[in-house]
């Protein structure tokens, strides 16, 4: 790719394109045309369209009625909207750090010289590929207070019988535990990151007398920051979208403790036929995701080390 740019003198590469460049541009656009069409039809236009719908009252039938900012005003006074937002942020805020610790521990453990690593790798990774709807059903059976194995084990040790998904105090926590079942994917990404760290760095640190913990804090963690950033961003995106588990296991309950943002958005659109309100909610979620991404990248630009990896 570099060879072709070199043949074009730098001074001419301002705003006008040479004949050859136009030709290349057309060939390039031809190859990417499926994506380009898909981008406008399935992404850009729906985003624009939902922006317009967010200022309307619309049931999905007939003509959307312009109502100005009413949807956003309603949202401000809708206590269930706030509940859903807080539930989602609570869930995401809990699931991401726990997931990071679980995945990092697994990765570090797998990075040791243990012969049966291929077994662990498969065992940890496979659950994250399984259909979430099926995993949700399995966890219902697993955590059932009367018939589940988990409460059987807990009571065995003299613990109380916990109705995980039936108690507002534990329902979200149970969903966070369920999310850890998919943490193996992150663990493998961390493991690949760990393998990319040059061993000579550890040797040098060992000569300087650094112990395992110091090496982890001063070498491993800083060099892993790009991978951590990648996982955090994906984690936030997934956390804000949490839907299937709540739909299948708890249906938003008990006492709305698992009414998450997308679950409430789905209900507004497809159960209450409030397309306008749901579109307004979609746009707010879009903005929240955007702001969070900017914040994370801002924070990361100071902390993330791209050198050496």
């Amino acid at each position, binding site marked *: *790719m570099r*060879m072709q740019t070199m043949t074009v003198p730098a001074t001419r590469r301002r705003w006008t394109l040479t004949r050859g460049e136009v030709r*290349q*541009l057309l*060939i*390039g656009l031809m*190859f*990417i045309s*499926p*994506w380009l*069409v*898909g981008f406008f039809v*399935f*992404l850009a236009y729906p*985003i624009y369209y*939902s922006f317009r*719908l967010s200022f309307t009252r619309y049931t*999905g039938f007939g003509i959307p009625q312009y109502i100005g900012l009413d949807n956003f005003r309603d949202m401000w006074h809708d206590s269930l909207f706030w509940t859903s937002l807080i539930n989602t942020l609570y869930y995401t805020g809990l699931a991401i750090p726990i997931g990071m610790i679980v995945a990092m*521990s697994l990765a*570090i*453990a*797998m990075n*040791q*010289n*243990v012969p049966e690593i291929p077994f662990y790798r*498969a*065992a*940890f990774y496979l*659950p994250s*590929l399984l*259909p979430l*709807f*099926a995993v949700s059903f*399995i966890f219902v*059976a*697993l955590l059932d207070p009367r*018939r589940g*194995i988990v409460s*059987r084990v807990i009571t065995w040790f003299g613990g109380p019988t916990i109705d995980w998904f039936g108690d507002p105090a534990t329902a979200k926590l149970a969903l966070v535990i369920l999310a850890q079942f998919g943490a*193996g994917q992150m663990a*493998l990404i961390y493991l*690949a*990151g760990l393998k990319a760290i040059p061993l000579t760095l550890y040797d040098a640190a060992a000569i300087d007398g650094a*112990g*395992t*913990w110091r090496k*982890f804090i001063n070498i491993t963690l800083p060099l892993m920051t790009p991978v951590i950033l*990648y996982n955090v961003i994906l984690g936030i995106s997934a956390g804000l*979208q949490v*839907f299937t588990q709540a739909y*299948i296991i708890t249906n938003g309950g008990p006492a709305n403790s698992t009414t998450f943002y997308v679950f409430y*958005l*789905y209900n507004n*659109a497809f159960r209450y036929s409030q397309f306008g309100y*749901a579109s307004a909610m*979609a*746009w707010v979620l*879009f903005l929240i*995701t955007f702001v969070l991404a900017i914040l994370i990248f801002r924070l990361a630009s100071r902390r993330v080390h791209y050198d050496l*990896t």
Partner: protein
Amino acid sequence: MTSPKRTGTLSRQGRQRTMARLVLIPMAIFYTLPYYWMIATALKSNQELAQSPPTLIPHSWQWSNFQDAVNYIPFSQYLLNTLIITGLTILGAVISNPLVAYGFSRVQWPGRDALFYVVLATVFIPFPVLIVALFDIFAKLGWVNTFLPLVVPAFFGNAFWIFLMRQFLMQIPQEISDAAKMDGANELQVAYQIILPLARPAIAVVAIFAAISAWNDFLGPLIYLQDESKYTLSIGLTFFRSTHDVQFNLLMAASTLVVLPVIVIFLAFQRSFIDGLTVGSIK
């Protein structure tokens, strides 16, 4: 993490192994227990299922539960629907993604890399943000209650799979393309006759990931499919919960049948899965 003192390399390695296993073995139990409980529950009789506390190992293995689960819902119909959607999704992914990735990696054109950042940025747009508008658009096209909304988008590429393919295509030496062009081949011929055949392993990875994502999809079928005859397995499974008392044994038997193909495909293509996963993360 404890003692910085060294007592010979061998025992040090042994201690590290023990420490690692202290983490790995309990976690391996956590990650495999759900399968065990799924199968154990699937094999229990109704009477045994009613027992509290539950039995840890089924007394008599009720294999007929699988037969009952398949009869409880129109399983074969839903399997067929799911397979059609999965097949068409694979087809779309295999046609579109290699082509787009080729355009973003092996053709040099002004603005290419800037536009590729747009591709990457779309990964972070939460899909649920689009569902209301997309539903309304598909409704106006008359596509609701058909498989079209679930399969047509696959023919227009997926940002993550484009990225994955592109990483692979960039590793193929430019000289191969140059030599073919010297012989008078145009870009399309180079792509289809020389480069993309070399990229078969990456295309296979895309196909596998596309299959899994279609097989696992829940929100899409939930929104777009309305006639019961058009449901997928993901929606069909919710039928087991709609009755008064959940029939856990049948639900778990059906879940086993849904999960099994994924496990088989994973075990068969483990290497591809791991390569596909880590290509995106390590710059």
